[in-house]
């Protein structure tokens, strides 16, 4: 290891100090917000019955953790989200492949996909409940409905924007259309597919919560609607916080996956 010059050491030190400062400020902002919230509830600047307070929420979370209701609701929402996410990816992958193979088919279907994609999907949920009943299947399909059309369009676009010259290379080596797909289109679409995953995991969660608002007896969406109706705001905010944590963890999981894929492709 060569000796680091003074200026370089100074640069690294300043960079680190800035980084630590940002982390500290983030934490302080959050802690300050919690403290302000707690104090204003205790001094009755705000109505703790409606606005709750950090200590009450924490107590609720501990209580619900004690009798496992929290784990049940969280588990169900997580299960529904992951299942609808997996189905969205599977369906859009198959659909995008089919559209890539048949440009006539994609030409015919394109306007319909665009219309379905621009429809506010929460509007579909009541229809789904009437058609499919108030059960978990409906919620999973509601989750899918939010993400699937956009996901098909983006994945098909990713497939179609493959470098024409790279496709030509496969043909000059005597390849078939199937081999073009396998050797160029799929591998070169991996970065785009990862960003599609990132967008859609969040959308599926949105769809599942909408479904649970309308048609569930369990899950975080149900917990939110129920507690707002009976004015148990501690429950509602606890559910929101868990939801934040789930969204964060799911996104992190995909980011881990992305990191792993990047490493394996680039040595």
């Amino acid at each position, binding site marked *: 290891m060569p000796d680091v010059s003074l200026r370089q050491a100074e640069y690294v030190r300043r960079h680190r100090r800035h980084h630590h400062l940002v982390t500290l400020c983030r934490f302080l902002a959050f802690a300050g917000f919690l403290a302000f919230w707690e104090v204003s509830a205790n001094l009755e600047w705000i109505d703790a019955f409606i606005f709750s307070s950090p200590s009450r929420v924490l107590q609720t979370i501990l209580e619900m953790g004690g009798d496992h209701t929290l784990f049940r609701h969280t588990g169900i929402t997580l299960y529904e989200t992951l299942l609808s996410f997996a189905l969205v990816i599977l369906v859009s992958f198959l659909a995008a492949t089919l559209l890539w193979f048949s440009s006539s088919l994609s030409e015919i279907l394109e306007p319909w996909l665009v219309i379905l994609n621009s429809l506010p999907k929460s509007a579909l949920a009541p229809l789904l409940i009437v058609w499919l009943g108030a059960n978990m299947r409906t919620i999973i399909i509601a989750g899918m409905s939010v993400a699937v059309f956009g996901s098909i369009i983006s994945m098909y676009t990713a497939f179609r924007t493959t*470098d024409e*010259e*790279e496709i*030509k*290379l*496969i*043909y*000059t*080596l*005597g*390849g078939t259309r199937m*081999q073009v797909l396998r*050797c*160029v289109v799929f*591998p*070169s679409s*991996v970065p785009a597919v990862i960003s599609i995953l990132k967008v859609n995991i969040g959308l599926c969660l949105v769809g599942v919560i909408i479904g649970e608002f309308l048609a569930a007896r369990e899950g975080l969406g149900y917990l939110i609607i129920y507690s707002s109706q009976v004015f148990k705001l501690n429950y509602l905010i606890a559910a929101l916080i868990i939801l934040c944590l789930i969204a964060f963890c799911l996104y992190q999981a995909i980011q881990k996956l992305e990191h792993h894929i990047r490493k394996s*492709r*680039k*040595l």
Partner: protein
Amino acid sequence: MDTLMNVSHVSYAYHTLSGETMALSDITFSVGEGEFLAIVGPSGCGKSTLLSLLSGLMEPEQGTIEIRQDTEEGKTQIGYMLQKDHLFEWRTVYRNVILGLEIQNRMTPENLSHVDQLLEEYGLSRFKNARPSELSGGMRQRAALIRTLALDPRLLLLDEPFSALDYQTRLNVCDDVYQIIRKEKKTAVLVTHDLSEAISMADRVLILSSRPATVCKTVEIRFAAEELTPMQRRQAPEFKDYFNEIWKELNHYA
């Protein structure tokens, strides 16, 4: 010299709703076994179209392109080298080089050892497990050439294979590629708009007119000294005469 490929009265036009654009008109020439033919013409004259037709990626609208059949069945007759190397970053250099064999399901021990031998001979065996981004521009082009040679084609088509390189690399790679092609005893058709490149590599230069392209002249390239590399040819006294002759022809028809 036996004829390997015969192109007779080939025409081709591109069609759009706003009309028809003639790209090639009544092109006739032949390529001899072991010959190095260069095709030059003003840019946009339809050179790349001609190569796509020769390689069989597109069918001519009129005329015929015949290549003498090899006795071996199902063997690739034609290798095509594109302007850019298009080595895939998600494959190692080795897996890029055997891509053609993989696609044609011909990963036999003989073919693979042929690839190993090519990599060894042309200085890439150390980089078998490297990623393409770790190679220099010249090495990338050599890897792309080995990918084409792995299929053991009888005719090599080169579509401005050096145009993406900087000038210095270009001269070196030109020498490299020329020597590899000669050593492997391949017939080659080079398409380029760079006259010096054509004269420094080819046995014969075919001059195309601007669009729609027709063959306006063929110039035999003969140097007094034999077995010159492209770099040595550039310094030979005949070089500038050929250059002036072809330059005049090009300007006359362009």
